């Protein structure tokens, strides 16, 4: 009973270590997944950020980005691997008796590369389709479900804002975005088709967004600088004037998200270390009591020839056993707790062999560390005094 209470501290500590690492790695993996579902090494260029003096409108309210900007970035920035201009809108989509409202995105064929999004079936549209503003489209899984149910959509004709489009490809399932949007509820068409045929605009060639993929994550800042310079030059922005566009770096968003999980991990880590400390002191306490209670036994062992280290090892091993039992129970509770947490709270938790080993190692270290002092005390006893102890 007393031992059970003693190892409780260790159990809580180890449970916290396991949970901490499970939630930490889980969250990190989740963030990485969401970021890569956006596409990796991405820069997003938004038009018309600011109007210095006078009324300021939000990003994207000015028609300052054009298709030729996108083409220029592609041609003149060596750190950039792919450029995908975006011109999008909401449209009503009809097939047979079914209809559905969804976001239609006009872009280049390489949008699939930039968004890191393979096709399930069919083919992507081509640069030729962009040039000719062909009425072809690639549809997401949610659109497939709502318009076609289980039948094969490839080659079918759907009407987007009453204009007939041929379905040439179906996107693979991607799931929710970091903001909780259904990313599969979308249709991709050539950017020129969107501009000229679907969503009329008084500014021919204008874009809502340009997505840029850098060659590698190290190249992101370089690419960002290059794009800034190029666009300022192309838009004839004077030295002291503010940009009429914004370049956003997705890694910044990722870093912010990682920061928040790091805080969480640190918090759990603090709980873990405090309770391991308390647990260790508990073990030291019970071992000191045990040494006092068993003074006679120590005396007997010394009388029949136990050496200093025989006595020490005996008590260290006992402390170690206590803490490792606590550690094993803690690992079991920690693993099942993490599973429950991921079911109840919907967090991704990942338990790695490393975290189990770490927790086990920590409980062992605590046992050794806090077991040593009582063991040391025991080994210093004088044999006759220990034998006479009542």
């Amino acid at each position, binding site marked *: 009973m007393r031992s059970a209470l003693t190892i409780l501290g260790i159990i809580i500590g180890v449970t916290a270590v396991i949970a901490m690492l499970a939630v930490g790695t889980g969250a990190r993996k989740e963030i990485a997944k969401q970021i890569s579902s956006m596409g990796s090494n991405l820069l997003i260029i938004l038009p018309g950020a600011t109007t210095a003096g006078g009324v300021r409108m939000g990003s994207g309210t000015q028609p300052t980005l054009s298709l030729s900007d996108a083409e220029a970035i592609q041609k003149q920035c060596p750190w950039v691997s792919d450029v995908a201009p975006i011109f999008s809108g909401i449209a009503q989509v009809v097939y047979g008796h079914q209809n559905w409202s969804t976001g239609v995105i006009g872009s280049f064929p390489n949008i699939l590369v930039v968004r890191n999004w393979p096709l399930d079936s069919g083919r992507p549209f081509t640069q030729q389709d962009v040039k000719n503003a062909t009425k072809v489209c690639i549809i997401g899984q949610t659109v497939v479900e709502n318009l076609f149910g289980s039948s094969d959509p490839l080659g079918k004709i759907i009407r987007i804002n009453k204009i007939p489009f041929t379905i040439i490809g179906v996107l693979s399932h991607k799931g929710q975005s970091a903001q909780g949007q259904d990313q599969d509820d979308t249709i991709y068409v050539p950017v020129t088709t969107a501009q000229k045929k679907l969503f009329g605009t008084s500014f021919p060639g204008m874009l809502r967004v340009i997505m840029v993929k850098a060659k590698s994550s190290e190249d992101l800042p370089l690419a960002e600088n290059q794009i800034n310079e190029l666009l300022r030059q192309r838009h004839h922005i004077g030295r002291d004037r503010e940009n009429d566009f914004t370049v956003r770096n997705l890694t910044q968003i990722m870093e912010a998200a990682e920061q928040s999980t790091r805080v969480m991990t640190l918090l759990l880590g603090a709980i873990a270390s405090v309770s391991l400390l308390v647990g260790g002191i508990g073990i030291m306490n019970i071992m000191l009591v045990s040494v006092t209670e068993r003074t*006679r*036994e120590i*005396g*007997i*062992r*010394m*009388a*029949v*020839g*136990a*050496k*200093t280290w*025989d006595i020490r090892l005996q008590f260290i091993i006992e402390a170690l056993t206590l803490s490792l039992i606590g550690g094993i129970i803690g690992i079991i509770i920690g693993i099942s707790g993490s599973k429950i947490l991921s079911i109840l709270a919907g967090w991704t938790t990942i338990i790695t062999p490393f975290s189990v080993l770490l927790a086990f190692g920590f409980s062992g270290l605590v046992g050794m560390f806090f077991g040593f002092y009582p063991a040391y005390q025991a080994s210093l006893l004088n*044999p*006759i005094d220990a*034998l006479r102890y009542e």
Partner: protein
Amino acid sequence: MVQGSSNMSLIQVRELTKIYRLGDIDVRALNNVSVTVEQGESVAIMGPSGSGKSTFMHILGCLDTPTSGRYFLEDEDIGYLGRDELARIRNQKIGFVFQGFNLLPRTSALENVELPMLYNGISSRERRERAMMALKEVGLEDRWDHQPNQLSGGQQQRVALARALVNKAPLILADEPTGNLDTKTSAEIMEIFVKLNSESNITVILVTHEPAIAAYSRRTIKFLDGFIVGDTR
């Protein structure tokens, strides 16, 4: 000098003095005590409480160290040994039997007897065999799995005797071994001591204040106020 030579005494104690400090007063528990005990002797040490006989036994048993004087056990100079060396001597050369039995509680008789062999690296199989043999020697082999609280006083003392025998020590020290036993059981225990002494040539030194128990020994040393006042054979 060569160890184990025939003319060597088992125990040689020269001018042994032990002084305890109790507060500001020095208590001379032993005063220039000199004794020689040969291998195979049986010695009873007698004397009233506080006469120094227990202190003498503790020093002989390497449980305590003298303030001055010299102690040779099988020609090994005990006075200059450290803690772990003394533990080795206790393990190899001395078997203890105490008044209060001093067995480990909640531990079987067999495991109690195995205890000394735990500290000199004997394999678990040999430990078991030798412990069983020692129990047989004291007539307790059928109780090997009993714990001390399931055994009578006499049986517990026999387990303690088996424990003292198991490492084949040449010397057995017994501190009032019959102090907690009735007369009949005391006689049984003493018969075992006599048998060990005569058949196995084990030196037995026991402390007692009962003349009837001392009578089992061939030699009696009397202590008073830290001095030896009598040594009769």
